[in-house]
C-alpha cells in the first residue's frame, strides 16, 4: 500500500482541518468536472506485479548486441549499480537546499570535472536529456554567442540527431540548419569550406561519426575558426580513452551521448546528454551547474550556480527551458569514471577498438561482404552486404545475435549497408558466430 492513512487517520485529520468530509476539500473542483468512472484494470499486489513484469520482460529476446548507432552495450560495473541505487542518491530531489545536499552537489562537481577532463574542456553542466538534445543546446548557444544564424551539419552526423535539431529549431525557424553531404562517409574539408560564410555560427564535427569513422577534426576546426565559426564536437566519451580530446583539437563545444558510461541500454533511455565548453562560453550553456564555494565558517562546499541562465529565474529569456535533467545517469558515469581512471578507460577503449577492427577484417573477408568506407574508425563500421542488410539481421537474430543497424532505416539508398558496433562486451565466440552466420550469404 502506498498511501498510509487508515480510516481513523482520515477522520481525525478532517476534524483537525475543521471540515466534515473530504468532499468539502474538493469543493473547488466543480462537480461536473469530476470523473465518475475510470476503466481500470484490477490492482496487482506486489507479487502479482512482479510476475506480470517478469512475463513482459521475457517477451524481449536476449541478444548479443552488435548494434550501436547512438547506444552501445558497454559493461556496467557492479559498484556503479550498487551505489546509484542508494536511497540517499536515488530519492533526493534537485539540490535546491545546498546544505542538505552536499553529497549530490559534490558528485555533480566531480561529474562536471570528469567530463571536462575527458573532452579537454573547462566547463560542463550537470547533464542534459541525451546526446541529441545536448547537441541542440550547444548549437543554440553557439548561435547566441556568435550572433550568427546558420549551423552546418555533416551528413556523417547521426541522422536522428539531425532530425532532433530540425524539430527543435523548425518551429522557431532559427538557427538555420544546412546539411553537408558526405559521400565518402566523412566530412570533406573543401565541402565544408565551400559552405563556410560569415553567417555560420557553428560547424558540427562528429568524430567518431555516425558511420564510426574519424573525421579530420583538427583541420576542420582550424578552417571553421578561420571564418569565425565555432566548432561543436560530437564525440563518444568512451572513444576518448584512445582518441584525442575535442578540446585538444580545437573544438569550442563538445557534446556526447554518455549512456556508455555506466548506464544500461534500457531501450533508449534514460540516457545522458554531455555538454562541455571553453571557459569563455560558460555563462551561455543551459542546465544546472554546480560550483565550489565556502560556507559561513570558510569550509569548502558546493552550490548550484550561475542560475541567472535558468528558467526559474529568467523565464522566457532563459538560455533553455531545461529543469529536471539526468542526474542519476550522470552519477553513474561519475562513479564509472572513478573506477576506470585514465588507465581503465584506455583499456576499455582499446578493447572496443581492437575487437571492432578484428571483426571488421573477418567480416570483410567473407565473400560478398566488404567495408563500405575507407578511413580510420573506432568501434563501429559499415558493412556492405550482398543482400539487403535487413535480411542479414533477421538471419543473425535467429542465432541470438543483434547484427547491427540496417542503414536503409535512415537512407533509402543504403539498403545493403549494416552499421555494426563492437564493444568490450562481445566475446570471441560471439564474433565467430557472427562471421560464420555471414557465410550463409556468401554468393
Amino acid at each position, binding site marked *: 500500500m*502506498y*498511501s498510509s*492513512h487508515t480510516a481513523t487517520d482520515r477522520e481525525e485529520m478532517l476534524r483537525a*482541518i475543521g*471540515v466534515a468530509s*473530504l468532499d468539502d*476539500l474538493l469543493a473547488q473542483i466543480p462537480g461536473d468536472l469530476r*470523473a465518475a468512472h475510470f476503466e481500470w*484494470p484490477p490492482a496487482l499486489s506486489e507479487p502479482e506485479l*512482479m510476475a*506480470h*513484469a517478469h512475463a513482459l520482460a*521475457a517477451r524481449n*529476446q536476449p541478444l548479443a548486441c552488435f548494434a550501436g548507432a547512438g547506444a552501445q552495450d558497454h559493461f556496467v560495473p557492479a559498484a556503479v549499480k550498487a*551505489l546509484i*541505487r542508494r*536511497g540517499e*542518491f*536515488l*530519492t*533526493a530531489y*534537485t*539540490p*535546491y*537546499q545546498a*546544505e*542538505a*545536499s552536499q*553529497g549530490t552537489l559534490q558528485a555533480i562537481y566531480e561529474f562536471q570535472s570528469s567530463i571536462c577532463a575527458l573532452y579537454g574542456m*573547462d*566547463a560542463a553542466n550537470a547533464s542534459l536529456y541525451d546526446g541529441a*538534445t545536448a547537441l541542440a543546446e550547444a548549437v543554440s548557444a553557439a548561435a547566441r554567442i556568435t550572433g550568427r544564424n546558420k549551423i552546418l551539419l555533416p551528413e556523417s552526423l547521426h541522422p*536522428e540527431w539531425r532530425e532532433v535539431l530540425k524539430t527543435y529549431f523548425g518551429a522557431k525557424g532559427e538557427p538555420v540548419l544546412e546539411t553537408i553531404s558526405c559521400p565518402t562517409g566523412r566530412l570533406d574539408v573543401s565541402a565544408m569550406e565551400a559552405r563556410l560564410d560569415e553567417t555560420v555560427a557553428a560547424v558540427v564535427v562528429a568524430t567518431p561519426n555516425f558511420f564510426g569513422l574519424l573525421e579530420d577534426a583538427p583541420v576542420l576546426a582550424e578552417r571553421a575558426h578561420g571564418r569565425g565559426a565555432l566548432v561543436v564536437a560530437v564525440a563518444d566519451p568512451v572513444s576518448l580513452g584512445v582518441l584525442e580530446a575535442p578540446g585538444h583539437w580545437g573544438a569550442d563545444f563538445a557534446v556526447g551521448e554518455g549512456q556508455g558510461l555506466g548506464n*544500461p*541500454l*534500457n531501450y*533508449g533511455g*534514460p540516457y545522458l546528454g554531455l555538454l562541455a565548453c571553453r571557459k569563455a562560453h560558460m555563462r551561455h550553456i543551459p542546465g544546472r551547474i554546480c560550483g565550489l*564555494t565556502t*560556507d*559561513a565558517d570558510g*569550509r569548502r*562546499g558546493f*552550490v548550484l*550556480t550561475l542560475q541567472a541562465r535558468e*528558467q*526559474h529565474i529568467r*523565464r522566457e529569456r532563459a538560455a533553455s527551458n*531545461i*529543469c*529536471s535533467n539526468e*542526474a542519476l545517469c550522470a552519477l553513474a558515469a561519475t562513479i564509472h569514471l*572513478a*573506477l576506470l*581512471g*585514465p*588507465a581503465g578507460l584506455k583499456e576499455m577503449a582499446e578493447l572496443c577498438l581492437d575487437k571492432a577492427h*578484428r571483426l571488421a577484417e573477418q567480416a570483410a573477408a567473407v565473400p560478398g561482404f566488404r567495408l563500405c568506407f575507407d578511413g580510420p574508425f573506432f568501434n563501429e563500421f559499415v558493412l556492405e552486404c550482398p543482400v539487403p542488410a535487413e535480411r542479414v539481421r533477421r538471419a543473425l*537474430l535467429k542465432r541470438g545475435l543483434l547484427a547491427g543497424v540496417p542503414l536503409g532505416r535512415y537512407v533509402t539508398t543504403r539498403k545493403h549497408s549494416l552499421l555494426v558496433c563492437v564493444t*568490450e562486451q562481445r566475446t570471441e565466440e560471439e564474433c565467430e558466430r557472427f562471421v560464420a552466420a555471414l557465410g550463409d550469404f556468401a554468393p
Partner: protein
Amino acid sequence: MTSSEKLSIEKSVPGRRGIWFAKASRPAADWLPHHVLRRVPPRLPEMAESEVVRHYTRLSQLNYCLDTHFYPLGSCTMKHNPRANEEVAALEGFAAAHPCAPETAVQGTLEVLFRLERLLCELTGLAAFTLQPAAGAHGEFTGILVAAAFHRARGDRKRKEILVADSSHGTNPASAALGGFAVRTVASRADGRLDLDALRMALGPQTAMVMLTVPNTLGLFERQIREIAEATHAVGALLYMDGANFNALMGLAKPADFGVDILHLNLHKSFSTPHGGGGPGSGPVGVQARLAKFLPVPRVVEKNGRFKLQTRCPGSIGRMRSFAGNVGVILKAYAYLRGHDALRLRSVAENAILNANYVRARLKDLYPAAVDEPCLHECVLRTEPEKMNGLKTLDVAKRLLDHGFHAPTIYFPLIVHEALMIEPTETETRETLEAFVSALRAIHAEALSDPEKVKTAPHDLPVRRLDELAAARNPNVAWG
C-alpha cells in the same frame, strides 16, 4: 557520522585501479594513425574499488533524501518511491534491450509503452499520448511544437504568442520561447486564480495557446477552467495544461473534460518514479484526437496483439530526442499504476489533498496562507518577517533543516511574497506531518526568542550557509 569528504581527484594515487579489463590483442597504435590518438590522458581519479565505494557511500550520507527525511517540496511531489518499481525497471530483459533492436525482439518493452499510453489516456480522458519527452519541460516544448504544427497545418501563421499565468512554473515561458513564440503573462486574481477578464483581453488571433497549470502552483483549482477553455477556443487558440501537479487529480477528474487540448504529466512526480537528485524524469504529453497526428515520432502502435514503432507519421513534429523515451522511468510509472485500481487511484489524490490541508490548517495562524481557502495537493503559506524579528522565508527554510526536515519550496510561485510552498504528498503519515508542523511552530517561537539562531541556520548540517554570490562571481565548476 560523516561531515565532509575530499574530492575523488584529491584521493587519487597514480597507478590505482577500480576496474580492469582483459588486454586487447593489439594496442590502439596498431589500428589507428598516430595523429588521432590521445596525447595526454584525461585527469580522472585513480582509485581502488574499495575507495570508490567508500567515497560515494560517504558522499551519499551528506544528503537528505526521501528515504530518510520528509521532503515537502512544493510543486515537486516527493512521494514515496515504491521499491518494486525499481526492481521492475532493472529486469535484465528490459534493461538490456537495444533501442534499434527489431520490434519482434522487444515486444515486452513495446507492450509496456503501449499499455502505459492507454492508461494515461484513461486517466486524463485524452485521445493519444507520447512517452518520448525526457522531463516536464521537454514535454511542454513538445506540446508547444504540437500547437505550432496544428496552426501551421491549418495555414494559420499569425499565431505568434503564447499566454502564461504569472504563477506558472518558469519552464512554461521558457518552453514557449524555445518554440519561437512571444510570451505574454496573464495576471492572477487575489484568489490565486487566473484573471479571466485579463485573459480575455489578452486573447486574440495572435494567440497560439494558453498555458495553464492545474491545479495551479498555489495548489488551487482553476474553477473557471471551462470558461477559460471556451474563451481560448473561441479565438482559435489551444489550451495547454501543465499537468505536473496531476497528483491532485489522480482518479478524480479527467482534464479532457476541462477542455484541455494538450497536457504533459511528470512521471517523476505524480507517478512515483524517484527523482535521482535531479533526474532522470519523463514528461509524457497527451492530446485531443485532432492533435494526435502531430505528436513526435516514434509512435507505438498495436496490431493483432503485436506492437510496432511507427516512425513515418505524416504531420508529426518529428523527433524530440533520440529513441522512444526514458524507458527506464516509464517502466516504473507503469508498475506504479498497475498497483492501483480506480479506488486506490482516487485515494492517492484524496490523501494528498487531505495532507496538504492538514498542514495548512495546523500552520495558518503563524504562517498565513497565500489564499485563505482549502487547497488541493499543496498549500502556499507565507512568512511574515514583520512578526518574526525580520526573519525571512529563507531563514525559516534553513532552520528547518536543523529540525530534521527538508525545506519546502521557497519564493515560488513568484506572485506570493515570502512564499513557503508545501506539498506533503499522500505517502506521508499524520505523525510525520504533525512533527513537521511542530518544527515550523517551534521555529516561529525561536524567531522571537533567539532570532540569531534562526538567521545563522543551519547549524547541524555538514556545512553552514554557503556563499552563493562568491560561487557565481568566480565560478569554479571543475577541478581542471
